[in-house]
């Protein structure tokens, strides 16, 4: 079976019913996505499939056709995404176990909705549990990330056609 994760192609030989999460974690050693419940109730395993957030614990690998992005593909410690930067700025993480999933849900939200309201945040984020109760900081970090993304877009527009790709 072929799989594209964070831009890299992989070939795996597993039961086609195996949830994507366990292919990522135990076969490909990609451990940012976490196991929390296995029944799509906690969001710890959230990854993107073609840009949309999915619960990898309940998504058969055979259906995962397209580009899979995990937290590792969103940013790295030395090159964090705007969402991750905001997570650090607000010191969101406590135990941190849910945060890969939270960041993946938040990233998908902001990709589709650059200026989410509180209501939008509630809708997009309520599938992600945090037993440490970091919700107020998650909300604040999403708003910061949204503002920063908007600001950098504005700069891009000002710079006009000369702006380099990916500002």
């Amino acid at each position: 079976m072929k799989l594209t994760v964070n831009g890299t192609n992989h070939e795996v030989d597993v039961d086609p019913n195996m949830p994507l999460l366990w292919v990522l974690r135990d076969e490909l050693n990609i451990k940012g996505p976490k196991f929390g419940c296995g029944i799509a109730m906690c969001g710890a395993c959230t990854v993107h499939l073609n840009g949309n957030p999915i619960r990898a614990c309940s998504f058969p690998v055979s259906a995962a056709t397209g580009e899979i992005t995990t937290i590792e593909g969103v940013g790295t410690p030395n090159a964090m995404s705007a969402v991750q930067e905001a997570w650090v700025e607000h010191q969101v993480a406590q135990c941190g176990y849910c945060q890969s999933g939270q960041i993946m849900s938040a990233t998908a939200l902001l990709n589709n909705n650059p200026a989410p309201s509180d209501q939008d945040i509630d809708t997009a984020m309520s599938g992600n549990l945090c037993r440490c109760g970091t919700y107020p900081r998650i909300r604040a970090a999403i708003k910061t990330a949204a503002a920063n993304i908007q600001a950098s877009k504005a700069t891009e527009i000002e710079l006009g056609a000369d702006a380099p790709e990916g500002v």
Partner: protein
Amino acid sequence: MGKLATITRRTFLLGAVAITGGVVFGYWKYKQPYGNPLQKDLDDGEAALTPYVLIDQDGITIIAPRAEMGQGIHTTLAALVAEELDVSLEQVKVIHGPASNAYFNAAGFEEAIPFAAIDESSMAERARNFTRIPAKFLGMQLTGGSSSTPDAFEKMRMAGAAARESLLQAAAQKLGVQATSLSTHAGKVLTASGDSFDYTELAEAAALIEPSAEPTLKSQANWKVLGKSQARVDVIPKSTGTAEFGVDVTLPGMLFATVRVNPNLLNPMNAYDASKAESMRGVEKIIEIENGVAVVATNSWYAFQAAKAIEFDWQPANYPKTTSELRQIVVDSFAAGADSKHRDDGDVDAALNGAEIISGEYEVPYLAHATMEPMNATAWMRDGMIEIWAGNQLPTQIVKEAERITGLPEDAITVHTPYMGGGFGRRAELDFAKQAIEIANAMPGTPVKMTWTREEDTCHDYYRPLALAKFKAVMGDTEPTAIDLELAAPSVASSQFGRLGVPAAGPDIFIVQAAWDQPYGVENYRVRGYKADTVFPVSSWRSVGASQNAFFHESMMDELAAAKSLDPLQMRLNLITHEPSRKVIEAVGELSNWGAELPAGHGRGIAFCLSFGVPTAQVIEVAEQDGKIKILNAYIAADVGTALDPRNVEAQLSGGMHYGLAAAMMGEITITDGKVDQTNFHNYNSIRMNQSPNVEVAILENGDRIRGVGEPGTPPAAPALANAIYAATGKRIRRLPLNKEVSFV
């Protein structure tokens, strides 16, 4: 266990040990519960030294020998050292324990220091010995409870200060000047003429200097790191998916396992049939373990699937099989006589006699811990040694269990403590680590990572006990004149300590925790505890007895105020006898704009609880919307004595409150036919983003000493919410979870 926690200044000894190209600073020793042959030169009964600071050519490493469960302790412990060492947190690496390369590469320990009585004969032995040291330290920290924070507060600062003084001395010797002519800044020693030397280049020379046993600590006014909000040392790994939790441990050739054990808790398995499972894809081995079976496979999911396919004959529960029967034991305990009467002011019986009595009965259910990361552990048996990776709060006990299961000697056992995806008390239990050890014992040479399904986790917890309360009270015009509070619960102390083989003698203080000791002056005031037979496994759950008793006590206070139409905040101020507590209540009043008019359908509730030495008050504001309760705002004021890292204190208070709110709103474990009914987050749910209130926190520092803050945010949450619902709707709810009586948005 209590006596292990008493680490006095007298038993504290600082030292330095030379290692290749560097130095390790800051040891202290403590009374050793069992002999360690590797440290034979120590005074009888004293051993085990824990290094805090390591400086070598690679930089400065601070060892934070305490389990990071999310409470930010690594950052705070590192900040204590950094402050006195005169470095910033960005300049140091923080590690969990000394299972670090530096130790394995250590070439020679200095003989001269009295406590480095390390057997020089075997490098491996030495490395293992150091690896296990923090295990002992950790175990002790846990039993030290609230005393461990003040303890680290002094010792880690002293380690940093002693290291800094030695580095100054080393520089002075090198230059032939007085140390007093030198200063330090940001990891460098500076000379009067403007030259500077990195600590790393002075480290080897510093190792030869006998450190001061009584280094001078900075005054609080001169703190540069402490008292300021720090970036957590783990925040970038935890924001990029790169932090390694127990469940992420990866070893060469590792296999994956899961277990199924008897859902009739702690009862044996009679028989099992794994004939179907054996031939399933990926299955490598099926192993009988205590009370059940482990399935080892090439992928965790294969193990889960195969474990599901095994048929079991479980021995039935050896305890009453339903919640109502278990509850009846608690009910009956009231008749059996009090276990404790820690508060008995005035003459309650006389005061109640013939007076107009207000009374009520309260109840809370069993609760699961439900950490986000399900229980898991990895173990690897090879070459007559076993290594265990387990996010845990009691490594010393894991070593003992490994000795028992494998027959290996203590010095062949190594326990690693990775990041934990939540603890809340659950990871002080040993079951999951024992299972990983049993599996490794059956598969020598192969590392195996054992992960529980969420179902196994929810159904095999050691639960917060179901508890009951009854009160009778008499009201005066402005405050109660008599309170008689009776509290009954199974004993966490005898259940939990019993499993650790430690007898829990005397009354169980947890049954009355944060009820008998509240700083209210009531003329006639009695709090009695009743110990129910502990037949169903219970354990510490964030804030332990305070988690239920604050609900009982503070709902009662609200009822008493309401009975005379008194302002519940003002009534508490009338009663309070402890100044820092008074200020906390006043602060939460100000923060919440208490007393200001609210829109129709809104209500505010207040609760106060002094737990773990931290007076904490919360005000919660709710609104009734289309017949449902929406939690709008939450205000918290707490006095931690000294806030070493205010932003982290705020996070802990808010997080602790959310944990308490989740339980108050919807947390309930029930038992049918001996088994727990709830299985996963769909029927043991938790508070979510759309239910989380805005939170404002005021941190006060009027208390007499520094306090830990991981737990005190939890207890007031349930009563503050219940009291708010009463204010908004007139409905007094005396039994948790609240969603039995109201719906939440």
